[in-house]
């Protein structure tokens, strides 16, 4: 009884769990924590379609899945069920694993609060690598209006330009979370954000190094901060620029923690 219920309706159950989760994220403006907001329209549309189909299926689909019992009688498609009709032990295992998947999905999508990626992933994915590789874009920033730059643009500039004179007199205000600079972990940290192309799994950390000896006394890794100041030659690095902060203050994680 439980076996046929679970094996038949696990897909509809997972559909409804996901539909509620996605629509709630969209309604509370948090879908951007997982996917690029450019795709939110498509995601919400297909989710609504999925939800409607799931409810319609509950109303229209036959109550019972009779293939569980088909092996009791001969029919044209004999061989198909020879291995499909599982032994009792396999049925128990299949039922148990399906319940685990549905429960896991419920916990991950509905019980745990939505979250941003932590600095741990930023460190693993290496801010330096991202900045160096997206460098092509940085060149086109020369001469553009600096007031339109976001953290990702400044991160590329800090990595790609060596002469602070090009940016003299520009006062930056950058918000992001703190992650340590690998080469100079005690005197510098990155003001970091994740850049999302498609979804959080392709998140690439971008960061502007901030030279602030003793920062660990004031902030912990993963704290959100706002730093203001100008760009100077990076004291820790031979090439590249760093933010020489006028002020660095703690702040709340913004609604939109990622850049896209």
């Amino acid at each position, binding site marked *: 009884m439980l076996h046929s219920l679970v094996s*038949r*309706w*696990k*897909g*509809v159950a997972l*559909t*409804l769990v*996901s539909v*509620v*989760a996605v629509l*709630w*994220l969209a309604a509370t403006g948090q*879908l951007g924590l*997982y*996917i690029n907001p450019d*795709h939110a329209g*498509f*995601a919400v549309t*297909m*989710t609504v379609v999925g939800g409607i*189909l*799931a*409810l319609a299926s*509950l*109303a*229209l*689909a*036959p*109550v019972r899945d*009779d*293939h569980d019992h*088909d092996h*009791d*009688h001969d029919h*044209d*498609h004999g061989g*198909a*069920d*020879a291995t*499909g009709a599982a032994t009792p032990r396999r049925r128990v295992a299949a039922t148990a694993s399906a319940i685990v*998947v549905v429960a896991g*999905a419920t916990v*991950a999508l509905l019980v*745990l609060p939505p*979250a941003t*990626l*932590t600095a*741990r992933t930023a460190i*693993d*994915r*290496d801010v330096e*690598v991202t900045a160096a*590789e*997206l460098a092509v874009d940085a060149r086109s920033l020369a001469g553009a209006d600096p007031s339109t730059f976001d953290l990702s643009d400044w991160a590329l500039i800090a990595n790609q330009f060596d002469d602070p004179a090009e940016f003299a007199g520009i006062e930056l205000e950058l918000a992001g979370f703190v992650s340590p600079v690998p080469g100079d972990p005690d005197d510098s940290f990155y003001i970091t954000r994740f850049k999302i*192309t*498609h*979804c959080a*799994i*392709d998140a*690439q950390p971008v960061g502007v190094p901030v030279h602030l000896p003793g920062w660990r006394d004031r902030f912990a890794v993963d704290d959100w901060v706002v730093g203001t100041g100008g760009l100077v030659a990076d004291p820790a690095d031979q090439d590249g620029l760093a933010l020489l902060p006028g002020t660095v203050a703690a702040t709340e994680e913004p609604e939109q923690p990622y850049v896209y």
Partner: protein
Amino acid sequence: MTSPTTTTRRRARTGARPPRRPLGTIGLAIGLAAVALFAGIRILTPEDRGDALSDAVQDFVTLSASVVIESLPFVFLGIVLSIAVQLWLPPDFLMRRLPANGFLRRAVISLLGILLPVCECGNVPLARGLLQRGLTVGESMTFLLAAPILNPVTIITTYQAFGWQDGILVWRIVGGFVIANLVGWVFSRHPDPTSLLTPAFQAACAREHADASATPRRGARMFVEETSAMLPALFVGSAIAGFIQVAVSRDILITLGQNPVLSVFALMLLAFVVALCSNVDAFFVLAFGSTFMPGAIVAFLVFGPMVDVKMLALMRTTFTTRTLVQLTAIVALASAALGLAVNLAA
């Protein structure tokens, strides 16, 4: 209450299937109650996360959830298209229009991705639908492997990321086409292609052919069956992808990237574990552009859309493990050969 088994036996003896009555309003009520329950759980659980979870566990959940949320709309789209194909595409429609010659047929099938804009996770349910509509096992594999690469979105994003640099775009397209057709050809020579399919999927096909219910009811049954096959696989595949992201350090792979031979294998391994969608992987690998050699990037861009942890979990719903091991081996060897050749030429 009569046990279902007894009922079925009696039914078998009399030879007639009693009409299977749908749940109707009761089903709808159960569904709405479930929605209310899930919404209640979501709204009543505390918003602040506290420090209950370590960063690693937290990121594992976030990454896995993001793969699910990103892929799910495409899976739904794939299921909708698959149901539409099964309900409304005349059985011989494809057969009549595709060339009779096997090689030409598969070549045309590998271009279907241009017309059916579904990303690779959505292609699995669609391929299942096409299999039910007369495509052979080998042909369905050709479609499944070629469509994520030979589709306009992937080609455009790859062009945006790399332009004509090092022939990466050209080799991706050519490699994807050739490998998909190679795999299709190899499996088309199998003496008993049905044995390549999982018993559960064979049973689903058998049921579909036996079902004479009205269209809406058949559609509903297909939705129930497709989601039961696809979604657990998607959740498990996403969890594996999220886990590997957290567990395997990127440093190791990047260190391997400098060597002309090892870089090819390192990036293929990366493609396998990161499980990205084919329309975004070009931007992702761009971030490794100067670390890795062009052949490695080609191997990444050809191998990744065809085989990765999430795709294997999804394809396992339809093909047997043994088949998938063989398929993975062929695709991996061919992608590696292509990558090494590009590196040699570079």
